[in-house]
Structure formats: C-alpha cells, structure tokens
C-alpha cells in the first residue's frame, strides 16, 4: 500500500511514514535519523537520542516535506533536497545496489547509482545467474545419463550429449537478459545510472570519472572479486576463477577445485555432469565446511562419493602453476597445520574457489578516515560505516560483500533495503539469522539460521534446551514420484517455546523449500502455530510440514492462530 502511495503522492506518503516515528519519540533508539541530523548541522551530537534532538529532527523533516511536495509528484524518482544533487547515491550497481535503488525510489528519494563495470555486478554477470544456467544444464545431463534413473521411469534415452558452446551461450544469454531486466527496471523508475568508478571524496560527496556529485546519504555496494591465495598463478585458461569458469571455454578432463564451499560444490556438479573428473582441495579437515555437519555428511555421500570426485582435506594449495611447455597444471599441497609439503597433483585445470575478497580499493576511504579490515569495510548492525577511530561515519553506509557480513546477493539486497528504511525515517535492523542460503547442486542444499553445533553452543551459554526434528524425502510422495527420494530436512528448535533456530534441507528443490522456515524465523512464527498451517498434497513442501509436525513443543499454539481462520 505504501509503495503505491509514495510513487504518485510522495508529498503525502512522507508525512504518513514519518508521523508515527515523530510522535513516538519517547522511545527512539539509536536511529539513523540522529545521524542525518548531525551531518546536516555538522554538529557533534552524541548518538544517544534526547528530547531535544527529536524536536530538531521534526523541523528538518517538515522542511523536507515541503520540498518534495513542491517538486516531485510527476517523476517516480523523488526530488533532491535543496543542498544536494541526490538524496541517495549508491556506488555499485550489483544486486545490493539495485535492491537499494528500487526501494529508495519507492520511498521517494532521488537516487543515483554509479557503476564502473556492468550493471548487475557479480551475481548477474559472474555469479549466481550464469552458474544457475550451467547447473540447469548439468541437472538435465545428469538425469539423461542416469540409465538406472530413466529406466525406473520406463524411459529410454541413449547417448545424451552436449555442445559446449551451446551450453556456454545459454549462460551468457541468461546473464545478458537479467542484466537488461535490471537496467530497465532502474531506468523505468528514473534512477540515474552514472557510468564510471565511484569514489568517496568526503562526507556526502562522491566522484565518478571527472564528475563530482553530492548526496544526502551514500551507500557503498562495490561487492567482491574472487579471492586468489598467494602462490597461485591464474592464467584464465588452465588455472581459473569462477569468473572464467562461467564462460565455460573448455571442459577439462580432470579439474582440481580448490575450496569445497558453495562455489566449488556447484562447479563440481557442473563439471562432473559434463564429463570431467574432479579433485577437491580443502584446507579444513572436512569437505563442505560451514554446512550443518549432518547435512554435509549426507551431501558428501550423494554429491561426492558416487561421482568421479576425489579430495584432499586438511591441505593448502601452496603453489599452482598453469599448464605450459607441455606440462600439466602443477599443484603443490602442504599440510594446513604443519605447513609441511604433502603431495603434488598434476591435473588439466584448476578452479580457484577459495572464497571472495571485497572490492574496496580506490574507493577513497582514506578521505573519510575509514580503515578496511582485510579489505572489508567495517559497519555496525545497521550497515553504518565505522571509521578508524571506531566512530560512525555520518550518512555513509556499506552493504553486501564489501562489508563481509553475509556474502550473498539477497543479503546485500536486504541490507540495502534496510538502509533505505533507515534513511527514510524508519529504524530497521536486519536479522541476518533469517536470511536463507542455498547451494544449487543436484539435489540442492539450503539452510537458514544456526547449524546444530552453533545452536548447541548457544543453548549451553544461554541455558535452554535444543531439540532436533528430521524428515526424509523418502517418505514424501512427490519426491518419490520424481524418483528423487534422496534427501533430509532437519530443524533445530527450542522445545520450551517453539522457536525455530535453524533449518537445513538437502534434497530435491531444497532451495525453494527453505523459505517457509526463513519466513517463520524472520516473522518470529513459532512451530506450534505454523504446524497448523495446511500444505497442498502431494508437494515437496510436505517435507517441511512434517518437520514442523514432528517437533515436540511444550507450549500450546497461540490462541489467534487457532481461532482466527474459522470464519472462512
């Protein structure tokens, strides 16, 4: 409702949005509005709010409302405040910047987005999007090649083959399409897309190329690049990062993948489906660190062991030399703990999937006295940038991979929206525990919240009990109809009050199934309530349904959930 209002009647929507906050000034927390106030006046007020502050803020708000009332209404993009070129400048047009820009326009802010490369950033051009195209191919190949699976359906398929260029084109076409969609969506709303590398010149001042613009608030959303550990020489042909791999310029017979996280795992799915053999190199003692141990164990049984994959764990690739002079790619492994040489591998290619490094160089952070930590821009829980003295930098925010809080596209977008909420007068703190994550292997892995060890540690500290519920895809009709009974869903919860602490799913369409749980966590829905919700039969969602039903919670369902729907 609010969105509809704000676009056509921004002058009315703003007071509407603000009024509750202004009147409820009795209990304001450390809201971003205080910051904005400080910045405007260049006054060194503390961050703790007071009555005095609140009244000042009110004045500013009302002034601003007059401005927008006079100027905007026709354009979707709001009018700038008097003294600034823009209300909001976003540096970096990736998914995070895009999400922030769209929400900013909705909130009536005049918004500019600066991009030095291509719109869409990593996700759209070199990450999630093209990799999903490749995984869509690998999933089908896998299915067509699995004679046993086909036979079980009564299908006969033989000699499934693929055309590498065709597969590569599918990925690049998808990226182009999504990039255009993203660009058009911003253009349509009137976001100014400025081309050039953006940098912070000073408070509320940004340059791109030779142009200098000012903005009331600035969001840094410059994202990340593949991280390549030292000693590894990337030539883009035989030693590659995900940037190169997604172009699928070759399909090596044998590829070593350094790192067995999301990226490595997804690529192992693609490569093995297309006929490569894969060797994982993992620095930790177990493959797939970061996943719930039970899930990673099962995933290893399904995604690693039966495939043409082997692995070395507890080792670093200390040196990787690309193939040249008739020699294969050489990988030297050292023990991760003792650093002693362990082994040498000779493979046809190596994919470096050791994570991503923030892209924050040349951002002019020194101009505002911000010191990065391993490249990441330090922020507080509201994405406000913290400078070298531990103080908040007014009007400057950093979202997405560049702050390193949770390096996921949708997390960046959520953080961007959260920042826009704050600068438009509504305090908002994003609950990162409610952000789901997914790995699009076949079958998929998804998760939200805590892993079992994390939950147990927290429970120990805070003194509550933890219970686990599990369901299997083998008992799900839809999964069996698809002959995809392999899978497990697991929920970690508090039996005393029914709070969901974490959900982990491995199985068919796990990435789509997680949202029922992540929404429940985000909205604080308790198991005893959600277990009464109805799921269509037969669907995969019943796996999650059974999870809720299997949980044993001591508290009764809340009254509302039980009675409200009776009228229908």
């Amino acid at each position: 409702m609010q969105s509809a209002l704000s676009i056509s009647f921004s002058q009315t929507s703003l007071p509407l949005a603000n009024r509750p906050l202004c009147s409820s000034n009795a209990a304001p927390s450390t809201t971003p509005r205080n910051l904005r106030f400080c910045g405007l006046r260049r006054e060194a007020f503390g961050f703790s709010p007071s009555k005095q502050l609140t009244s000042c803020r009110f004045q500013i708000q009302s002034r601003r409302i007059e401005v927008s009332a006079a100027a905007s209404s026709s354009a979707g993009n709001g009018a700038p405040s008097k003294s600034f070129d823009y209300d909001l400048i976003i540096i970096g047009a990736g998914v995070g910047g895009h999400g922030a820009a769209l929400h900013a326009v909705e909130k009536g802010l005049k918004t500019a987005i600066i991009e030095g490369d291509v719109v869409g950033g990593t996700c759209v051009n070199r990450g999630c999007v093209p990799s999903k195209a490749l995984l869509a191919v690998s999933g089908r190949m896998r299915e067509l090649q699995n004679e046993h699976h086909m036979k079980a359906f009564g299908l006969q398929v033989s000699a499934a083959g693929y055309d590498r260029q065709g597969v590569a084109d599918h990925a690049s076409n998808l990226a182009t399409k999504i990039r255009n969609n993203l660009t058009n969506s911003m253009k349509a709303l009137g976001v100014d897309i400025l081309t050039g590398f953006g940098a912070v010149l000073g408070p509320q001042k940004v340059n791109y190329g030779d142009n200098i613009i000012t903005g009331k608030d600035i969001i840094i959303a410059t994202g990340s690049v593949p991280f390549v550990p030292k000693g590894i020489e990337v030539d883009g042909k035989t030693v590659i990062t995900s940037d190169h791999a997604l172009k699928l310029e070759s399909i090596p017979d044998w590829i070593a993948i350094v790192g067995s996280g999301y990226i490595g795992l997804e690529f192992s799915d693609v490569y093995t489906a297309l006929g490569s053999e894969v060797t994982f190199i993992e620095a930790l003692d177990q493959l797939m660190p970061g996943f719930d141990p039970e899930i990673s164990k099962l995933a290893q049984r399904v995604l690693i062991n039966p495939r043409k994959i082997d692995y070395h764990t507890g080792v670093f690739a200390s040196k990787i030399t690309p193939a040249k002079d008739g020699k294969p790619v050489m990988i030297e492994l050292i023990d991760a703990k003792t650093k002693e040489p362990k082994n040498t591998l000779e493979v046809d290619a190596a994919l470096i999937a050791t994570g991503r490094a923030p892209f924050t160089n040349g951002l002019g952070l020194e101009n505002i006295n911000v010191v990065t930590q391993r490249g990441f821009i330090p922020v507080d829980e509201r994405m406000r940038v913290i400078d070298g003295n531990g103080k908040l930098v007014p009007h400057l925010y950093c979202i997405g991979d560049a702050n390193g809080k949770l390096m996921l596209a949708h997390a960046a977008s959520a953080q961007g929206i959260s920042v826009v909420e704050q600068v438009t007068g509504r305090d908002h703190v994003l609950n990162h525990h409610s952000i789901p994550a997914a790995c699009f292997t076949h079958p998929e892995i998804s998760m939200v919240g805590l892993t079992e060890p994390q939950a147990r540690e927290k429970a120990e500290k805070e003194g509550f009990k933890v219970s686990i519920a599990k369901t299997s895809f083998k008992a799900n009709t839809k999964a069996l109809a698809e002959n995809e009974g392999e899978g497990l869903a697991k929920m970690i919860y508090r039996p005393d009050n029914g709070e969901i602490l974490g959900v982990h799913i491995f199985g068919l369409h796990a990435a789509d199934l997680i949202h029922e749980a992540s929404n429940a966590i985000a909205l604080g829905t308790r198991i005893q309530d959600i277990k009464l919700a109805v799921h269509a039969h037969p669907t995969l969602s019943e796996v999650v349904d059974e999870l809720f039903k299997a949980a044993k919670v001591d508290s009764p369902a809340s009254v509302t959930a039980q009675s409200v729907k009776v009228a229908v």
Partner: protein
Amino acid sequence: MAVASSSFLSTTSLTNSKSNISFASSVSPSLRSVVFRSTIPATSHRRSMTVRSKIREIFMPALSSTMTEGKIVSWIKTEGEKLAKGESVVVVESDKADMDVETFYDGYLAAIVVGEGETAPVGAAIGLLAETEAEIEEAKTKAASKSSSSVVEAVVPSPPPVTSSPAPAIAQPAPVTAVADGPRKTVATPYAKKLAKQHKVDIGSIAGTGPFGRITASDVETAAGIAPTKSSVAPPPPPPTPVAAKAATTTTNLPPLLPDSSIVPFTAMQSAVSKNMIESLSVPTFRVGYPVNTDALDALYEKVKPKGVTMTALLAKAAGMALAQHPVVNASCKDGKSFSYNSNINIAVAVAIHGGLITPVLQDADKLDLYLLSQKWKELVGKARSKQLQPHEYNSGTFTLSNLGMFGVDRFDAILPPGQGAIMAVGASKPTVVADKDGFFSVKNTMLVNVTADHRIVYGADLAAFLQTFAKIIENPDSLTL
C-alpha cells in the same frame, strides 16, 4: 535390537499417504527388529578356541516390510570402539529412509564386515560385536574370513592412492628428478582410483596411458579385464553390464586423434546398431551361399511392377514361403538351450536411412498377398524415413533380408542380428554363363544369395534345404502371385 533413534521417529511414518503422517510417535515399536541373531559363536570357532567366546554378529535389519536389502550409510562407531547398550552403531538406508541401528548388548565393535556405501541383504552379517576387548582380535580374524568369502572389503585400508609420494619435488620438477627420489609417483584420476578400489585392482601396478602418463578409468578397466564404458560422460559408476563385458576392448589403446580430427558421438540409432553388432559376436554363425536363376522372376517383376509391386516384396514373399516349409530357419535360440519356433513369419528388411540402418518388418510375409505386402512395404519405408516406426514395426522380425543388389554388389555376407535364426544377403542378378547338366552353355540371370545362420539351431543341411526351396520358388515364381 531396536532401530530408529528417536530423532528419526518422524521419518518412520514412511507410508506415502498423507493420512499417516501424524502417528509418528506410535510407530516406533512396530519397527523394532532383531538385528542380532542371538548369540551364536560360529561352530568352527568353538572347535578351535578353548574358551567359548561371545562374538555376536550384527545383522542387516529389516526396516520395513518391503525391504530386501539395505545400504550402510555410515558406521557411527569405529572398529575397536566400546559400545553401550542402546547406542547407535550404524546408519542403514532402507528403501524408505535412513535409520540408526542401536546395539542391544554392551561390548566392542570388533569388526566391520560391510563397509560404508555397500549393500547387504536383510539378515546378512554386517559387523561383529565382541563382548570383551580380548575377543576383538578373534572376531577380526573371523571377519577377515567372512569378507574374503563375501564381496565386501572396505574396511581394510587398500594400498594408499596417490598420496604415497613422500615429498613433492622442488618448484619446477623435471619429471626425471621427481622420479629419482622416493617411489615412482602414480598419477591416477579420481574415477580411476574409485574403479580400482571397486574392482580391487592395485593401482600401482597399472601403466597409465592417459595424458602425461596418468592412469585413467579405462586403464583400470582394462587391467580389471572389463570393457571400458564408452561414454566420456558416464553415469555414476554403474556395475558393468554383462553385455559390455564381453565386448571387444577396441577403444583402449587407440592412437591419439590426428589434428583437426573430430569425434562425433553416436546417435541413438547408431548406438543401438553398435550394441546389437557387439551382441551378435556371442552367437556362433556359419554361412551358406546359393546361386538362383532369376529369369522367371525378372519376367514376373516386369509384369507386376506397374501394379506397384517392388522387388523387395517379391523377395520377402519368396523367403516367407520358403520359411513356411523350413520352420527351423525361422526359429531362434534365446537361451542357448532350446529352439524357439516363431508362430509368425515376419521378414525384417534392412533399409539404409540417413545416418543409420533400420529393419522395418513385413509381418506374416508368407500369408499376405504380394500386393498387400508391397503396399505395406511402402508404408513402412515412409515411416522409417520420417522416424515414425513403432517398436513392433522394427523389432518383431524373425528372419532378415538384406539386399545390396541394386548397388551392383554380386555377393556379401551379413551379420546375424541377435534374436533371429538367420539372415539372407541378396546380391545383384547378373547375366551369367551357365552350363546345364547336358553341357550346353546358356546365359541366364543369376543372383547369389548368402544366408548367415545360428549354428546352435540351424545346421548346414537345414540351410541348404531352405535355399533349395527358396531357389525353386524364385525360379517358378507363379506361386508368388497366388
């Protein structure tokens, strides 16, 4: 012995119907199943050991009524680990769910007989439980004898894979120096290592033929004496099919491709042909040739051609009529032990179509009249060209006819397709000088036919008699039009 750890209770409502979902908690007792086949120290053991030992076998439990075998997902306990009653020992995957299997007795997990990822039938011993620590060794020997007789062998560490090389050579190792220190470095691809383990091949003993001398999957398969799986993009390690096992291992040592050569994978039809041809090698065949005078047939053909009758139909009809008199040539040998006499005479005729070969079948060729047969044939060829043939229209043949006469081929021999008793290869009909029994020479149109047959059921005399009948029909073709 109980199964199903409490956390898995929900999954025990295995039935697919939605109505059953809620009774999770009540279901566990029904799933309890005996996993220890009580205490039976093996009798042989009792004889050899003075002390009666309590070594219990852990059996594959039946976790559901439909379960016949189970896969070991993982051993929660390792060999030698102490077990307390009620503890989960192993996770078993049934046809419906994964379940923890608990021990009913205190003791030590002495030996794992069936390793992780392996399958055992319900009731088979998957591990041994020793009552005291002292009995572990004894149980192990017992397990060793067990596993050597059975298929499983996962626990005993196999010769270490590639990791054996003690120290990596210096930064830019010339291959020679790398070899110089320590044992020779073995480079094997991940799949090669998996296969070697699966087929119990010592990977160190294999010479690699892959790029840079590495050991590839096909090297291991060759060493294990099985045919390499053809496709470069193969499904997860399948048990090699028995058919492929006998196939010639032609792909193993192919020289590297010449530059600019290309590899074109088989189409579905070509794969089917290839598969059939390889399969045909398992049948003992022999060939008998026969010259047939076609003057009368040619004359008849000229007459009926305007009515839409084709040479193929004439030959098929003739073969059908001859087969009717010699049913053994129309029979097949399906199991190597018996004759299968076919109730119909269905003549399959080989047709070259773009990029392949297919054999549309003229059913009841002996019974249908020539005109119907010709009509049918036209229809089949049309369908074959547009790839519309239904399976019964190309795989129901009992005898095959292959004619290369139109290309001027005078004689050739055909490969017997699997599942049939004989195939006839027809050459061109050519004016030939023949001498009759009185020594007079004349020029007659003669065509050579050559039949390949399965000697398990069709013998030389059978084939000769059949060919004689066939020749008679061709030489006096009036019966064809009846």
